[in-house]
């Protein structure tokens, strides 16, 4: 456990994805079975046991420390698990009777323990672990293990161990169980690939290339179909039947994460008998009264381990289908898109379920015509859903469904980003490599004679621009609050930044009442006085119409 804890501790401080992978791969290479398998399970969310309540931990601590000293310590540290880990009066090392528990010991112990035994068991482990080990144990058992590593990254590290592709792991993943002895044996070349029949497997999705404007010269509009690119999340909805005739349904993200637990409403739909066995590729959206809600609304339903009836009613989930990968055991991925689309259309019609519909095609005869639709989706048939459209997708009508990102078949043609000119208000130091730079920016626009913050951005700039803004921040600081600097801004003074963003929605959680989607710095407007930055009315208008008004129409494309 101490070694696993050290890994978690280091991962939490490491900002770079590549370096995280190195740390993970090193861990998997140097730690034996079954310990590493349980670590993989912990990181992929595959461990299940009843979580201990923080109150158990508080009680254990109260029996061992002075309440005044505990309160002072908690106040200073600010995190219960960490405070207890540091404060725990462990016996002298040479007085301990057992070696520190392994992660495997802990997993087995938790699975076997009766509720009333938990405090005693926990106390014995805390006695035997070091500070970092105690911290990780407490995070693990309270279900608060957040380490900045996705399940996908952990699986990628396992794949790297034996030069495999991460997708190969995904293919077999749902048939595997902790501690994954067969997986490691295969990856390390000691055994064959684990085989099993998953009734509802994840299929590696087919991805699109971003379209370059010059691509149009090479592409024939007659062989492509077009659809809206929806601002939801891409999902794979899969239903199958296992050996014992039970229906198994799963909802996967684009990267193969299992989202099922957060969407029991959609799972129930998929399990309805008349659905049959199928695998649909589509967009997960929130639909209310037939209208697609913003991505910010969808986020209310994401990243949850469970979901209440109230939330389901308030944010009804919906699948807008655009591809059919398999139907009643028949793999359709080799078929041309036209065929798959036709089968999908008749399937959706036959199922006639209010939570499932077909992603419509956009009629067009030339690239110019499609360009118009992309600029103004409302006029091109999207009507009230125009806000939820990010652009258009182009798919070759004959394309088979090829896992990965094959060339020349699918393209995404994103809507041009919106732009506003905003004034830099606050700056904060970045992390890791960027910790010597002020690289996280809060910017605002005018509301009357005052600036109101409307968003935060921490990328989009070049290295040179970063240095320039950093210099500006250091020489124009008005106030400091911890790591944050407040800058000199007024009607006379301030640095204007051009901000690009993908969309806008209402948000009561933001001071301005607005939330920007994917904002980034597109350039520094040294030429522009602060007073000429945009006003809040411009954003309000954008929110109303979905279109950029007044002086700055989006560049045509």
């Amino acid at each position: 456990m101490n070694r696993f804890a050290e890994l978690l501790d280091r991962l939490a401080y490491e900002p770079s994805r590549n370096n995280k992978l190195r740390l993970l791969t090193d861990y998997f290479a140097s730690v034996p079975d079954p310990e590493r398998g349980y670590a993989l399970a912990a990181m992929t969310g595959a461990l299940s046991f009843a979580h201990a309540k923080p109150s158990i931990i508080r009680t254990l601590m109260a029996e061992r420390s002075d309440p005044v000293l505990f309160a002072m310590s908690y106040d200073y540290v600010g995190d219960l698990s960490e405070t207890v880990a540091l404060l725990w009066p462990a016996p002298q090392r040479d007085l301990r009777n057992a070696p520190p528990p392994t992660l495997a010991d802990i997993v087995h112990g938790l699975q076997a323990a009766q509720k009333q035994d938990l405090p005693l068991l926990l106390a014995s482990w805390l006695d035997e672990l070091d500070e970092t080990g105690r911290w990780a144990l407490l995070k693990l058992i309270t279900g608060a293990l957040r380490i900045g590593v996705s399940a996908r990254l952990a699986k990628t590290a396992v794949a790297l161990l034996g030069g495999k592709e991460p997708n190969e792991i995904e293919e077999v993943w749902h048939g595997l169980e902790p501690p994954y002895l067969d997986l490691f044996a295969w990856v390390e070349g000691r055994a064959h690939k684990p085989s099993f029949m998953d009734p509802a497997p994840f299929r590696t999705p087919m991805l699109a290339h971003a379209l370059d404007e010059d691509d149009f010269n090479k592409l024939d509009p007659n062989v492509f179909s077009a659809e809206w690119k929806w601002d939801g999340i891409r999902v794979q909805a899969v239903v199958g039947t296992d050996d014992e005739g039970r229906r198994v349904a799963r909802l996967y993200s684009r990267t193969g994460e299992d989202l099922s637990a957060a969407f029991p409403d959609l799972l129930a739909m998929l399990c309805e008998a008349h659905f049959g066995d199928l695998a649909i590729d589509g967009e997960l959206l929130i639909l209310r009264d037939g209208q697609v809600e913003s991505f910010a609304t969808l986020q209310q339903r994401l990243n949850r381990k469970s979901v209440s009836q109230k939330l389901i009613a308030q944010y009804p989930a919906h699948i807008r289908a655009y591809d059919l990968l398999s139907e009643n055991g028949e793999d359709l991925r080799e078929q041309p898109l036209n065929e798959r689309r036709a089968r999908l259309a008749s399937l959706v019609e036959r199922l006639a379920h209010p939570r499932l519909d077909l992603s419509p095609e956009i009629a067009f005869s030339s690239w110019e015509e499609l360009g118009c639709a992309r600029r103004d989706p409302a006029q091109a048939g999207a009507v009230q859903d125009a806000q939820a459209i990010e652009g258009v997708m182009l798919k070759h009508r004959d394309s088979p469904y090829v896992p990965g990102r094959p060339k020349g078949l699918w393209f995404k043609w994103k809507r041009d980003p919106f732009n506003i000119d905003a004034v830099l208000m606050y700056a904060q130091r970045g992390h890791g490599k960027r910790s010597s730079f002020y690289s996280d920016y809060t910017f605002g626009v005018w509301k009357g004679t005052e600036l109101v913050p409307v968003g935060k951005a921490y990328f989009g700039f070049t290295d040179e621009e970063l240095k320039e803004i950093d210099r500006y921040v250091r020489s124009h600081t008005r106030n400091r609050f911890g790591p944050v600097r407040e800058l000199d801004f007024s009607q006379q003074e301030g640095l204007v930044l051009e901000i690009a963003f993908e969309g806008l929605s209402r948000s009561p959680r933001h001071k301005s009442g607005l939330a920007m989607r994917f904002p980034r710095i597109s350039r520094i407007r040294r030429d522009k006085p602060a007073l000429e930055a945009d006003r809040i009315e411009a954003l309000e208008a954008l929110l109303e119409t979905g279109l950029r008004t007044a002086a700055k129409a989006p560049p045509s494309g």
Partner: protein
Amino acid sequence: MFHARLGAKRLRPTYLSGQMALSDLLTLTPAGLYCAAADVHIDPVRPVPRALITHGHSDHARAGHGAVLATRETLAIMALRYGEAFCETQQVVAYGERIGLNGIEASFHPAGHVLGSAQIRLRGPSGCVVISGDYKRAHDPTCASFELLRCDAFVSEATFGLPVFRHPDAAGEVAKLLRSCTLFPERAHLVGAYALGKAQRVMKLLRQAGWDRPIWIHGAMEKITAFYQSEEVDLGDIRKVSAADRAKLAGEIILCPPGQLSDLWSRKFPDPVTAFASGWMRVRARARQRGVELPLVISDHVDWDDLCATIVETGASEVWVTHGAEEAIVHWCQTRGLDARPLHILGYGDDEVEAAGEGAA
């Protein structure tokens, strides 16, 4: 001058207000701790006629006093910092040597904090008080080990005076650094460490762990490191980093003052791993606040367990806490029936704020 035989010269105290009598031996004045009978201040924060200095960190050892009595190493460090003329007259005292000051016997004893650091014991007709300065009980190969002194009253630092601060074995922390060097040989490892004491201790620990490559240092550490080497602390091949070197130091260990970690200076190294050697690194929020990627919990101060143990072992019935988290240790003393109070001396630990870690303290 101090050298004075008992009763040679009697001075009136030079202050009139803002004082607080702690005992017959010790008073707290705006300039810091003061022994009226001997007419000396201990680690004063303002210029005074006669000062006893525990160690060379800048919040304890300031320039501008009249006469200064300290260990040879501390005087040398002050001269390196402030120039030879940092006070009017200097007098060297050896560990254990007893000096009479107007009927008060003063002696200096190893504090285990940094090279030359001392606790100061004052003995008079009414009893005995020990002023700890900064100290630690953990082993440190670069300075003399802490000597336990029994006393009636103990004036202790409490930089890490909260029970969450328990320093692990420093060798284990250095092993973490070396593992990272093995795993990331293409990255430079920058280690923030206070220039006096901590830096040299980390160098020595690296040598003991078998690191035999050159250790690179920031220019601000050069003089003090050379002084340690001239005092027979063997640190191996130590090299100053020049601007041209920085891009070439992949896989190397570079020590610098903590403030440099997030400075322009650090940017030129190849994909640097930023480490910070400090007792504050025990708490994740503190490490994260500074953007540290590899926190190393190595401290030159007593941790909570050693602080409590030391208080008990001195046998003191009165405890005064000079700086750090005073409330917690005062509370602990009171629950054990010891008379304790915080002194809230302004001016100590200033360098900690600057270095945002344990600094001069």
